[in-house]
Structure formats: structure tokens, C-alpha cells
């Protein structure tokens, strides 16, 4: 198997194809500290792409409640169990190129070779059961149906089991991995990564519904459509990224889930462009971390971890950068505060930015101004002679 370099692991690893990075890599940062699971992102995706027959189970975007939730149920627990206990990262090997140090464990690709040789699997995986796919948010604290008033709000609130010790919401789309396990798994070669932006797509005309992608993607984001008998997945709203939406006259736009987020938890950009605000969050400030980097796919959706959750759980989920990320995020410097204000500030894709004393300015693809946001509102105290009523 060829060797490729995975910067999140800080080492080379085995992957079925030669390493070839795209011109630019699609990336996004999701700030978990702001997510209240309103599911606007989920519905924005569904109303744009997955609204027709056979798509009842197609949740390209979902928001799940950790630690009990998951779609399909238990996806991460099962992937972690398959991988087994791992030794983690050697932090003493950290450098500018390898910010978390060097991983001493085994990726899902390497585990498939050592533990599932002859199975045909390129990445160690499993097929979720029908029951696990039946509904997003099963066992979670978001749904209740008892109506006591015309607006549907109940006196008692949630009825389903809650994990009352702590919980947080994890919004998920396809990670458009640098080394996608779905792409490696497909025996038809129907999955490809676009050289211009790194978006991973399934060629619907080539797919025959073998479900190898569903089996081997550890994040379980390719989904088998029982009606069409082929698999589908998040397409990163590529027409918007290409700038073909008439609304902006050719200017690239953020995906629907990112643009629709009312909590302004999401920001889209390019992971390999030092001008991009996403680059700053991931590689400079290091407050945004990959989801389960130990799987080895180099995922490109990054998360600002929730400040309130137990650190051990977060380290398992986001790797060894958690402590630094939370410390830095809790006391943001002026530049970081500026970049954080770009979240949800415009539908247009912000390619570069400039942080000034009082505001942050975002620029588009052609270096044109796309947004201008104040960093902190001034506090104005009215003189006592005026009535101070709010």
C-alpha cells in the first residue's frame, strides 16, 4: 500500500491510493459551544437536497446529542470498539507541521490490513443495522410530542431519556476527508475527490449500491437509499461553492447548512490557504480540532470543543489538542475574537480577512469586501438624568 502523510496524525500512514492533495481543500469549523440543536441546518439540507421519495433516511446533515445520541445509532462507539484501545499521540514530536505530535496507534486502514486481511475491507468497518438507521435523534433529548398549548410547547419539556450529568450537541456532515475511507472502499471506483476543491462525491451513474462505502466510512455519512438502490451523501452544496447560485452573481457561497445556521456556529473556508479564517482557527490559534483523527482519514470538518464537557471524553473525540483549544478559546485574543465574529456573518464564502481595532473585514474570491462586522459593541451608559428602563 502507498504511504501518504496525514498531518493530524503527524506521520505517514498506509492508504490504498497515492497521496494527491487538491488545489484547495474544502473545510469548515463548527463551534459546539453555540449549538442548541435547533436543527435548522438539518432542515436546510433536507429542503434543498433530500426531500423526495426514498429520502426519509437521508440525513446528510444531522445534529446528535452526545454522549447518548448518534446517527446511525452508536456509530462512533462501534468504530472505536473496532479500532480497539490505542496508545494515542506522542506530544513530544509536535512541530509546526504536526501540531498534535505523532500518533503511535493504528488507523482504520492499517487495522484492516493487519486484522481483516482477506476480508476485502480497505478500512476496518461495519454495516449498521436497519434499526440503527431508523431515525436521527433516537434516544435523545430533542423530541417530544405531548401538546398542551396551540404552539406545541409543553409544561414539562423533554420526555425522552436524558444524560443529565452533561451533554452537548454534535452537528455532522460529510467530512470530505483528505483520505476518504468511502473512496478507498468503493469497488466500482464510483467515489471521487474533486481536484479543484477536495469535495468528495459519489458518481450516481457508477454506483451499484454495494454499500462498501457505508460499511467502511467510520463517520457513516454515505447512506444507502433503499428506494433508488444506490448510495448518496453530502455534496458540500458544490453548486454554491462553485458560485453558480444566481443570488451572488458568480461569487462562491457557503453551503446551505452553514448559511442557514441561526446560532452562527459554522464557518466555511479552505484548510490549506493561510489567508482563510478557517486556516487561522485550525492551524494558527488551534482552537478547532478534527473529529476522531485517530481513524486516519484526515477529516476536514473541525470543531471548537464544548468548554463544559469532561476532558477525557473530549480527548477521545477530538484528539490531544483539546486542552490547548479550550484554554485558548476561553481567553480569545483580539484576532481570534475577530475571526469568531465572521461566523454566520454572510452567505458568501470568506476567502481572507483583516482584523482591525474595532471590526473584522471579510473578503471574497476576487478580494472584494463581502462583510464588515464590529468585534465588540461599545458599552454606553446613559447619564443618570435619563430614565434607564429596558
Amino acid at each position, binding site marked *: 500500500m502507498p504511504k501518504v502523510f496525514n498531518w493530524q496524525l503527524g506521520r505517514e500512514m498506509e492508504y490504498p491510493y497515492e497521496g494527491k492533495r487538491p488545489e484547495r481543500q474544502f473545510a469548515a469549523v463548527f*463551534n459546539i*459551544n*453555540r449549538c*442548541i*440543536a*435547533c436543527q435548522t441546518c438539518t432542515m436546510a439540507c433536507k429542503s434543498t437536497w433530500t426531500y423526495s421519495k426514498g429520502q426519509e433516511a437521508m440525513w446528510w446533515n444531522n445534529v446528535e*446529542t452526545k*454522549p*447518548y445520541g448518534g446517527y446511525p445509532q452508536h456509530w462512533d462507539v462501534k468504530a472505536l470498539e473496532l479500532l480497539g484501545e490505542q496508545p494515542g499521540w506522542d506530544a513530544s514530536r509536535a512541530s509546526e507541521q504536526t501540531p498534535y505530535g505523532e500518533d503511535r496507534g493504528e488507523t482504520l486502514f492499517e487495522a484492516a490490513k493487519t486484522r481483516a486481511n482477506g476480508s476485502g475491507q480497505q478500512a476496518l468497518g461495519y454495516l449498521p443495522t436497519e434499526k440503527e438507521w431508523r431515525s436521527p435523534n433516537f*434516544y435523545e*433529548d*430533542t423530541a*417530544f410530542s405531548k401538546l398542551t398549548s396551540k404552539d406545541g*410547547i*409543553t409544561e*414539562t*419539556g*423533554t420526555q*425522552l*431519556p*436524558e*444524560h*443529565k*450529568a*452533561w*451533554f*452537548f*450537541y454534535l452537528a455532522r456532515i460529510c467530512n470530505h476527508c483528505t483520505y476518504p475511507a468511502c473512496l478507498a472502499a468503493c469497488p466500482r471506483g464510483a467515489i471521487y475527490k474533486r481536484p479543484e476543491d477536495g469535495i468528495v462525491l459519489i458518481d450516481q451513474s457508477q454506483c451499484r449500491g454495494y454499500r462498501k462505502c457505508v460499511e467502511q466510512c467510520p463517520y457513516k455519512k454515505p447512506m444507502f437509499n433503499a428506494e433508488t438502490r444506490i448510495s448518496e451523501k453530502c455534496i458540500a452544496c458544490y453548486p454554491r461553492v462553485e458560485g453558480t447560485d444566481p443570488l451572488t452573481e458568480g461569487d462562491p457561497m457557503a453551503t446551505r447548512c452553514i448559511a442557514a445556521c441561526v*446560532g*452562527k456556529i459554522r464557518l466555511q473556508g479552505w484548510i490549506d490557504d493561510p489567508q482563510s479564517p478557517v486556516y487561522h482557527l485550525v492551524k494558527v490559534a488551534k482552537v478547532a480540532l478534527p473529529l476522531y483523527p485517530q481513524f486516519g482519514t484526515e477529516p476536514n470538518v473541525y470543531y471548537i470543543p*464544548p*468548554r*463544559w*464537557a*469532561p*476532558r477525557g*471524553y473530549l480527548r477521545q473525540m477530538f484528539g490531544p489538542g483539546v486542552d490547548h483549544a479550550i484554554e485558548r478559546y476561553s481567553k480569545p485574543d483580539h484576532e481570534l475574537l475577530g475571526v*469568531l*465574529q465572521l461566523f454566520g456573518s454572510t452567505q458568501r464564502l470568506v476567502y481572507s480577512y483583516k482584523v482591525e481595532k474595532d471590526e473584522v473585514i471579510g473578503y471574497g474570491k476576487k478580494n472584494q469586501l463581502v462583510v464588515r462586522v464590529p468585534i465588540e*459593541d461599545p*458599552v454606553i451608559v446613559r447619564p443618570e438624568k435619563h430614565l434607564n428602563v*429596558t
Partner: protein
Amino acid sequence: MEADKFEDPTDFELTHHVVPGDPDRDHIAEMAEAYIVEFKRMRWPDEEILAMFRNPNYAAPHFVYQERGEEYIADLLHRVSYSQS
């Protein structure tokens, strides 16, 4: 009425184990404070943030509201505002 043969009767029962938090931390209070800091950063006025905590459709903030009460949230809003000024 005949029981549904296709539905496992235990499906809706909690079968999971609690994942313990850190014993010396109040995770729920930290979560409430984080939400307030974040929504203030988005320039939400205190009254709207409090309304979000009151609304059972937003399960996480409303969970804190149910567990700790409105006075607790109002006090937390005041303390966060004071620490930011």
C-alpha cells in the same frame, strides 16, 4: 389490542449507562455560562437569552432552566455581563 410484533418493547427504555463527569466540576453550570457568553457575543439582549432558556424547544438551555430555576439564569446573566464590562 394485539402487541406490535415488529417493535421491540424495550426500545424506548433507557438502557445506557451514565458517563460520569469530573467530580469537582459543575458541568451544567458551565454549559449555561458558555451559552450566555456565546449569545451575548452575538449581541443577543439579556431578555432574549432568558427567553431561550425558558423555551422547552431548546432542550439544553431549558434543561438548566428546569433544574436551577429562572432566578439562577437571571443571576448568571448578570454575572456574565458584569465580568465582560
